[in-house]
């Protein structure tokens, strides 16, 4: 008698998950999506709770108008001054992934996503530890425009916002071909050499095998670091970045220097930089910051960085372009952010920041 009861209990316990799954499957429609790695993933339809893990891709939520379909984002998106100005509620979303490889699984489970969209490294962690389906993105530092368009269409497929994605892609193509039409005729002898000098010492840069090369060429400039390859992943460092020696930069003698920390006045005063043309001609610029910093393969920077650089390098060829108005127009038409004049100027001056509250947990 006793053993029979035990048998029933065991059978019940074992059968329970089967019933559970059956019920879930019946109540919700599913559809198949193909991720960027080419894998087929079954996801609930409609998707209302998606967790975004990719570093710079969070802005896709606004570009596609899919903000309400998100249940978790990255801390970079949550801390962005520009996003907070228009969507303060973003702070209420959890950010289970802090930096690459650090995923707070419990926080992720608490957010209860139907789908996680992540890069290979973070995605593997989620797949190993949870049953949440993972769609892999393909993001690397030699992320050209073609990959960006593919990425945009993949997200559009996930969120079912194809029209918005095509609107962005058309905007991107129009801007790039406008910039190219103005810069393609610049004679080689008049082209300006540009060096992106990041970090406090302005010596860390993106090599010629990264997405930055394409942007620099679109703007009609010569990429000083063209021969440097840095796209590989380096342990503990952001892939794509590498440090150059000062001497190399003295040898390149760039006409334009773009920095991301400090300010141009400090560079003008530094004796080491004195013999460089960019310093002598006072052509050191601080890189703009929008939703995210513009030296990353993001959707906003793919459009605006080449335009900004082209106008900055060749103001006489872009007299009719008002960068403040262009910035306002992009964020209004594509992301639905109505920037005031002051805010657009702050974007261009690199005055906005990404505030890091901490990697995890709500503020």
């Amino acid at each position, binding site marked *: 008698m006793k053993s029979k009861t035990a048998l029933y209990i065991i059978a019940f316990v074992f059968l329970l998950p089967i019933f559970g799954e059956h019920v879930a499957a019946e109540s919700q429609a599913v559809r198949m999506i193909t991720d960027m790695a080419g894998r087929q993933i079954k996801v609930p339809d409609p998707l209302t709770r998606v967790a975004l893990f990719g570093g710079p891709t969070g802005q896709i939520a606004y570009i596609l108008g899919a903000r309400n379909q998100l249940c978790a984002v990255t801390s*970079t998106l949550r801390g962005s001054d520009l996003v907070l100005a228009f969507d303060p509620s973003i702070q209420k979303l959890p950010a289970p992934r802090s930096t690459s490889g650090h995923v707070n699984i419990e926080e992720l489970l608490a957010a209860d996503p139907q789908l996680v969209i992540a890069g290979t490294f973070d995605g593997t962690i989620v797949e190993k530890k949870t049953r949440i389906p993972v769609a892999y993105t393909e993001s690397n530092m030699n992320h050209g425009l073609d990959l960006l368009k593919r990425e945009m269409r993949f997200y559009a497929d996930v969120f079912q916002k194809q029209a918005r994605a095509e609107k962005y892609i058309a905007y991107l193509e129009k801007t790039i071909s406008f910039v190219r039409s103005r810069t393609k005729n610049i004679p080689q002898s008049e082209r300006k050499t540009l060096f992106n000098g990041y*970090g*406090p010492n302005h010596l*860390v840069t993106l090599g010629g095998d990264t997405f930055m090369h394409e942007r620099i060429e679109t703007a009609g400039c010569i990429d000083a670091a063209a021969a440097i390859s840095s796209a590989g992943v380096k342990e503990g460092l952001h892939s794509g970045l*590498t440090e150059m*020696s000062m001497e190399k930069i003295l*040898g390149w003698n760039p006409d334009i220097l773009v920095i991301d920390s*400090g300010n141009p006045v400090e560079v003008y005063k530094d004796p080491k930089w004195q013999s460089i043309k960019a310093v002598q001609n006072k052509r050191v610029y601080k890189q703009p910051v929008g939703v995210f910093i513009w030296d990353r393969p993001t959707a906003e920077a793919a459009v605006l960085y080449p335009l900004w650089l082209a106008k900055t390098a060749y103001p006489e060829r872009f007299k009719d372009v008002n960068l403040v108005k262009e910035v306002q127009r992009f964020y209004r038409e594509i992301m639905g952010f109505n920037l005031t004049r002051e805010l657009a100027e702050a974007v261009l001056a690199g005055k906005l920041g990404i505030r890091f509250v*901490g990697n995890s947990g709500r503020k």
Partner: protein
Amino acid sequence: MQSNKKTGIHLNPVKLQIFLVLLLAGVSTAALMAGQLRIHPYEVIRILLSGVFPIEKTWSPTLESVLFDVRLPRLLAGLLVGAGLSVSGAAFQGLFRNPLVSPHILGVSAGAGLGAALAILFFGKIFMVQLFSFLFGLLAVLMTYSLSRVYRTTPVLMLVLSGMIVGALFSAATSLLKYIADPVNQMPSIVFWMLGSLNNASNKDMIIAGPVMLAGIIILLLIRWRINLLAMGEEEARSLGIDTGRIRAVIIVCATVISASAVSISGIIGWIGLVIPHIGRILVGPDNKKLLPVTTLIGAIYLVVVDTIARTAIESEIPIGILTAIVGAPIFAYLLRKNRSGW
């Protein structure tokens, strides 16, 4: 002869020192001529001499800037950091009577690391990074020193233990900062800094930190015979009427100031302070009177050579902290195999 073989090579220290000085001069000259930009050696000499003598300037200001603003301060930084870390390592190994001790044992690099990370987080300026790493390096050693005095039986052991405690605390705080740092720009800056590099050395750094490091090195060299007395052991030295506490304090202050300055210029360069003294010991034996000058010279030569590789081998910079170990470990293994180091 037989006994010498057991405890290293024991070269004639005078001849060895002359040889090392000549080698140092040769290596330094070569370092000034090598670089990412090809400048003809004759041109290098002319530009350098133009700093002292009135020579007509037929070269571009860029070349002058390369030599006077980049290669020269970098060479000086390499010489001083290499010499300073090695001589403090040798002094500490004598003081603690332990061959596994490096100048970082009292927590100076852990402290400097935290200072640098804080400065990168809040200021993002090179000068502040250097200042903070220097001050926090000193702070860490001060904490180690005061902690070691709470329990006064075997001060040397307590110093090592306190150093471990303070080092662990500061390292954990640095890891915490790295964890909350902006993963986009600040984190890579902290990581680059931790790997060590002489790429940021400037003339201003050398004017401020150079004399301090030089003074520390000279004091350690002047009191080198007293380190021998400490090596006899606390009681024996005291019975000879020597104030061991004061010598210990002088050595700690000098080594700390040297390594904190070194770290503030170059980031954390490990291995040198640990291993160069052993190489010196293989060559001249454990007597600190001979060992310290030889170690100073070898350290300077070694870091200049490694830094020249770091800045010329590939197109971007190789972090020097990685190279010092990659280049140094096989050399050390070879020497160990060939000669048994007398300790």
